[in-house]
């Protein structure tokens, strides 16, 4: 039997240290006022943390093709879900608003 990869403890410890550092960074950056860049920074750091978890804790770094195909397929469908839905909502101003709620804020600004 071909042995599965055994990842050195050092690699796990490194990934853990990276994740903790990024968590501290994202929390700290939230208190720095940077307008839209607050959101960009928070999401970029979240993606970086996800990659650390997937590559090292979930062993993607040591895996073969099939796992990658499944991950890419999952993220691709998620992208389709978000992009198509968001493009409808934000280009057509058709989302129903409950009475008494007033118009949605960003729609109001656009009109």
């Amino acid at each position, binding site marked *: *039997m*071909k042995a*599965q990869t*055994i*990842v050195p*403890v050092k690699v*796990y*410890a490194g*990934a*853990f240290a990276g*994740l*903790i550092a990024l*968590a*501290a960074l*994202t*929390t700290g*950056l*939230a*208190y*720095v*006022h*940077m307008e839209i860049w*607050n*959101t960009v920074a*928070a*999401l970029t*750091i*979240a993606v970086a*943390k*996800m990659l650390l*978890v*997937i590559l*090292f*804790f*979930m062993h993607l770094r040591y*895996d*073969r093709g*099939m*796992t990658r195909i*499944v*991950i890419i*397929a*999952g*993220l691709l*469908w*998620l992208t389709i*879900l*978000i992009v198509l*839905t*968001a493009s409808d*909502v*934000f280009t057509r101003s058709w*989302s129903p608003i*409950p009475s*008494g*709620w007033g118009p*949605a*804020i*960003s*729609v109001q600004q656009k009109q």
Partner: protein
Amino acid sequence: MPPVRRSALGPEMTATETRPRALEEQFESLDAQHDARKLGMWIFLATEVMFFGGLFMTYTIYRELYLPGFEQGSHLLEVRWGALNTGVLILSSLTMALAVRSAQVAARRFITIGLLGITMLLGTAFLAIKFLLEWRHDYAQHLVPGINFAYAGPYAAHVQLFFCFYFFMTALHALHLIIGIGILAVLAFLTWRGRFSDQYYSPLEVAALYWHFVDIVWIFLFPLLYLIGGR
């Protein structure tokens, strides 16, 4: 059939057959079985991405539509508890990975069981912080939609919508964590019974994939609910 006796070949081998006991008949080798099980879990996780993805997307769209209300709601959450829970879950992912590794390198059973136990404890600590500190605080502040929501500021309806998302998403995540803790309890029991070895540990590996995925969901929930847009 004569009773099957354990041989000196290890816990997964029997005297009457050369195939490992844990090897199901449709697989040629434990390695192929291991890969198939991992792939199955990855496919399940891809469906989970869509499951949570729908919520993340809906949250993002309503946040965009009702931005001031959602920002006010976000500012009513306590960042320190969200950040603490992030650390707790990341640490639990480390101990989970080390638990799998301890089986891979044929460490003594109590080490694997101990690491699984620590992982379960950290998961429970996350839930305790979430339920007993955060949610209780939210309840005391009258921020629970459908139960005692009584926010008086402007955009109150939009703030209420934010809290609907907040409670539903964190509850769904907590449910995943509770299921994960249950799975780890079963695996700790099976480890104690000697069911795993350095040749056969795929249930541990597959459970670890699930556990790390639940960690990733929180990695996105934390900034989306507590941080984005700044404090």
